């Protein structure tokens, strides 16, 4: 499956609307949802994400082929895993205690591995977490443009990684695939590519030379 089809973005904070805009521009049908009433984000959708449909989270997820989780990790812990069961989930979240506080549940291991364990009925892929939300839109470029930047995608399911790699390519980045969520630790805060938006050769070098993916 190389066409991810319909996207549901959960989260309308800093990051969710940016991902939604990029996806709409790339031609995906996009729904956006928070934990509350879609009416609360109707204006945000209308003015900031033209083309995105605000929906209740359950309905947005049910109709989606891919769900992007762009909420604070502390809020993730309140989500019923059943909501996302059977879905391909892109984990955009970061565990970043210096910025967002300590969460005991995320103190040991890569955050996406912990997310995947909680979402045992879903297929979890880590992507779009390591580029700041400002840069994410500013630095997106069509395929083939010189200097195009790379974006990492990590997961334990090769087909799911391929699907999200295709999505990254269509929204404006050269995908660099990492073959496990453990390897995806290289994309986390404090890692070699977090906040540094690099072209593919430099990105690959930085990730390969990083020891945390061997942990």
């Amino acid at each position, binding site marked *: 499956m190389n066409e991810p089809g319909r996207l549901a973005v959960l989260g*309308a*904070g*800093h990051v969710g*609307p940016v991902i939604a805009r990029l996806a709409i521009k790339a031609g995906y049908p996009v729904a956006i949802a*928070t934990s509350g009433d879609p009416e*609360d*984000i109707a*204006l*945000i959708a209308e*003015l*900031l994400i033209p083309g995105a449909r605000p929906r209740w989270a359950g309905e947005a997820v049910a109709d989606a082929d891919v769900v992007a989780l762009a909420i*604070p990790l*502390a809020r993730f812990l309140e989500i019923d895993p059943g909501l996302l069961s059977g879905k391909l989930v892109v984990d955009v979240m970061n565990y*970043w*205690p*210096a*910025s*967002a*506080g*300590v*969460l005991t549940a995320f103190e040991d291991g890569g955050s996406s591995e912990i997310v995947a364990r909680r979402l045992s009925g879903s297929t979890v892929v880590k992507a779009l977490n390591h580029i*700041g*939300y*400002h*840069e994410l*839109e*500013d630095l997106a470029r069509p395929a083939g443009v010189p200097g195009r930047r790379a974006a990492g995608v990590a997961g334990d399911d090769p087909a799911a990684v391929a699907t999200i790699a295709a999505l990254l390519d269509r929204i404006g980045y050269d995908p660099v695939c990492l073959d496990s969520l453990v390897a995806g630790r290289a994309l986390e*805060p*404090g890692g070699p590519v*977090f*906040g*540094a*938006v690099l072209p593919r050769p430099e990105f690959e070098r930085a990730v390969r030379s990083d020891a945390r993916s061997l942990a």
Partner: protein
Amino acid sequence: MTYTFGLDTFGDRNSDADGRPLSHAQTIRNVVDEGVFAERAGADFFGIGEHHTEYFPMPAGDVALAAIAARTERIRLGSAVTVLSSDDPVRVFQRYSTLNAISGGRAEVILGRGSSIESFPLFGYDLADYEELFEEKAALFAELLKGGPVTWSGKTRPSLLHQDVVPHTESGPFPAWIGVGGNPQSVIRAARLGFSLALAIIGGPPARFAAYSELFRRALEKFGRPPLPVLVHSPGHVAATDEQAKAEFWPRWRDIISLVAPERGFAIPTEESFDEETGPHGALYVGSPETVARKIATNLDVLGATRFDLKYGLPGLTHDQLMTNIELYGRQVIPRVRELLSDSLVR
């Protein structure tokens, strides 16, 4: 259209001409002198942002603002920002209501998180609770501003029952803004609670925030509120020439951003990224009075904002450099921006 222009500081620790850091105490006395001078130079507002660090030793800005109030007559004085989530809204209201009394009605507050997170562990708050803390406390602050007895209950502070909170203001609520960095739901919240909107734009193209101003206007309509102003807060430095301003600012900017980058997730600045940010489409207002004035006028117009607050200074700059910045901003930049906007020369 009436435009107003402010200067903000975080109490950035000064150095002497040889690059040696001044004491925290001397830096704070210098901030008071800078606030007094800001009025003489022609600024409309002087703001102090709450910080608790070795390089921004400014946790009690309201005390410094009171000292400035005693030596000035016209300039408005306020926080930029107050970290409301780790403070008590009742105490914040009391401190700024007292400042309002001392200054004869010149107090304002900007509530937000700012770039400051060090107050959370200091006062025993969990950053993971940030959202709930801010939502509840901003709602309580909105109630306090109305004046009169307050009844309130929530999870983040003890309940209030018909509580009279003093000192009363003489002429209604003082201006209160919510500072927003890029979260559209924070824009909606400001409109819902009836706060004005302060856009903190510290990186990237300012024009992208135009949609936030529009979102704020539409949200105010939706909640049945009258129009409220939008202000833009951005860092910068004014000197005689573009070259001098950039030469003074760049090493300090590189050092402070590199220092906080791991915590904030900022990219380490390069000379290339600095040129971009100080250029016509970046977020930094660094240059000669004409360069800075043109950029301010353009962005106020693009963003539909009526106030611009320049966050001046950085740790390591000298008091003399800051006084020159203030003088050029007040005497040259502000009149030039007014001229550009009145003639619509920016379009």
